[in-house]
């Protein structure tokens, strides 16, 4: 855990592109929100492996978003139920239901549908917001944080040793 936090700090302060970190967090959101053993997560895993996103950010994001998902699963269920029972979409769902690929993807499960839809809707906004936050942090806060008393305490801690070792 300490190593993971250290990685994140290193990452935030490194030369890594903010977009790479943001994309990692967005992909982690999909991975964390939706049930892990879902077919679409294989695609997410493929993207994480092939696209240069930061793995540390991805792992940390996955842990955080999984925790959030555990809390808001009932909301995912409600949303999924609503979208899957919309009369106007019944034709679409029926067509997909008769395709084995989509059946394996469990699209007709209320939690899978609700969580995936939520993750996809939030994907772009989260990407943009985190992108700006990271850029802002590096521009305005990094120097101030570096000089702060809290950072001085932190630098004296074990976490910082690990961070330094990794740096």
């Amino acid at each position, binding site marked *: 855990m300490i190593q993971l936090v250290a990685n994140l700090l290193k990452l935030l302060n490194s030369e890594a592109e903010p977009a*790479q970190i943001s994309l990692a967090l967005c992909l982690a959101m999909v991975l964390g929100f939706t049930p892990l053993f879902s077919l679409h997560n294989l695609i997410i895993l493929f993207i994480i*492996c*092939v696209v*240069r996103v930061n793995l540390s950010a991805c792992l940390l994001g996955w842990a955080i978003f999984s925790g959030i998902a555990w809390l808001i699963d009932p909301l995912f269920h409600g949303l999924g139920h609503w979208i*899957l029972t919309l009369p106007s979409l019944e034709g679409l769902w029926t067509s997909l239901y008769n395709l084995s690929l989509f*059946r394996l993807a469990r699209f007709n*499960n209320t939690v*899978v549908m*609700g969580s995936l839809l939520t993750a996809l809707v939030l994907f772009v906004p989260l990407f943009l917001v985190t992108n700006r936050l990271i850029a802002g942090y590096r521009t305005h806060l990094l120097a101030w944080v570096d000089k702060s008393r809290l950072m001085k305490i932190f630098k004296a801690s074990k976490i910082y040793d690990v961070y330094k070792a990794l740096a």
Partner: protein
Amino acid sequence: MKKWIRIKGVAAFAVITAVLVLFTFLFADRLVKKAIETTGTLIVGARVELADADLSFFPAGLSLTGLAVTNPDAPMRNAVEARRIALSIETAPLFFRKWILPEMSATGIRFDTERSRSGAVAGKEKATPPLKPGEKDGKTFSLPSLDMKDPRKILEQEPLASLEEAKKIQTDIKQLETKYKERIAALPDEAHFKAYEDRIKALKSGKSGWKALLSKASDLKKITDEIEQDLGTIKTVKKDLETDIQTLKTRVKALPSLARADYDRLEKKYGPSATGLDNVTSLLFGDAFKGKVATAVKWYKKIQPMLEKKKTDKNAPATETKEEAEVKRIRGKGIDIAFTEKRPLPDFLISNGSLEVEIPAGILAGTLKNVTAQQPLVGRPMALTLSGKKLKGIDSVALTAILDRVSPKTAGDRFTFSGTGIGIKPVGSEDSLRMQGASAAVTGKADISGGTTLDADLTAKLTQVRFATSTDQGKLQQALSRSLKEVKAFSIQGSASGPLDDYDLSISSDLDTILKKALKNATQELSVEFGKGLQAAIKEKTGSAFSATGSDLGGMTALDDTLAQKLQDGKNLM
């Protein structure tokens, strides 16, 4: 663009995927075993264990070894055990998350076997609630009373209406006696009448002038009026007394009739009678019949939810029941919404199965077809057959079950059973009735319409019947034993009907008729003896009270004589 693509990532992805696939291949057996144990335990409510599961991929199949399903009501026993279950699996439907099993073979199936450790699931232990005072444990068959009680002991417990009436009469006589004595005391006595006599004598003597005569005539009239008034008062008291005496006499006279009524009531209640033996069949077979029906109904209720899949209503509002909410807290759970399929298949189906059931008497072979919770999709009902011949203590036995949920309109389940040469184990108790053995030919059927209403009947023809001699030396028990010794064959009819939660049981037999007829003479003889004893006991208990009422009534009559004397004394003055 180059800085965004990680070519080595493809290899990493391939490795991760390969590891996942390898993991699935290597641990598939364990995962299947765990899944069956977990799901089974959840459904049954008691531990479901599997010794081994072997999943094969080419061709797809599953072999389960050492399946043990704990009886949730008796955690130290298995409800069912199977040595081996081999299943073939259709691969294509698996992509649609459908488990279609064309063939199944189950061997070494045994019921109600012992477990080495408890199969109870924590928090699922069921405590049988204690019966409330006066509450009966279900519908029980009553035992016939074969005891002939001592009449004196009966009278110690039973109140006698005749005796109570005699005691009441005695109390009433005493009260009336006191009351009339007081009233008589207030009436004119001898001295009072003597005073009248003296006054009359005084009138006769003295002056005889016309004025004096007129005065005497007036006085005499006055005396006469007074005497008549006194006589009237005496007459009223006498009349009241005579009425009360008459009432008491009537009540005393009715005492023997009341004693007779007491006798009739007690003779009917405690007297030896063949009517008490009209449920010998229930006594011998009732508990077993009741137990078998209760067990069958209990297991039917457990299986029932698995016969029909709960439909997912697409239009139902997404409101949460408490149970649903709990389910949703488990990460990743939800509801699978079903849509119309082009080629609908059930989620789970065993098309054909062969069974080998081991019972203490031997092995039953059978078939199982169309096992699914979605019969409308298959278009055929679930069917089970089991049969065996030349088993230990059984010539032949056959069982069929059709569980039809194809159409809601015609939903109904039918079970039939037949068996010949079934050896019946000893039943009953040695001190009352005990059948040592018999051979039975049994046929039975049970229909459960709509999954709620039971209509079952059973006929058993028993031959080579052997009844034991009762160890009880009571006259009636011995007479019963003699009659049963002559019975070599009889038949039993049993039925169970009504709602599954509250069905009525009945069991009858021509054994009851045979016994009733044979015991009629025996009970008649004993009835005479019992009747004499009871009569004597009643007479002994009521005799003194009855005679006391007669003597007490004599005291009342004496009072009437006193009043008659007073009346005569008054009339003599006139």
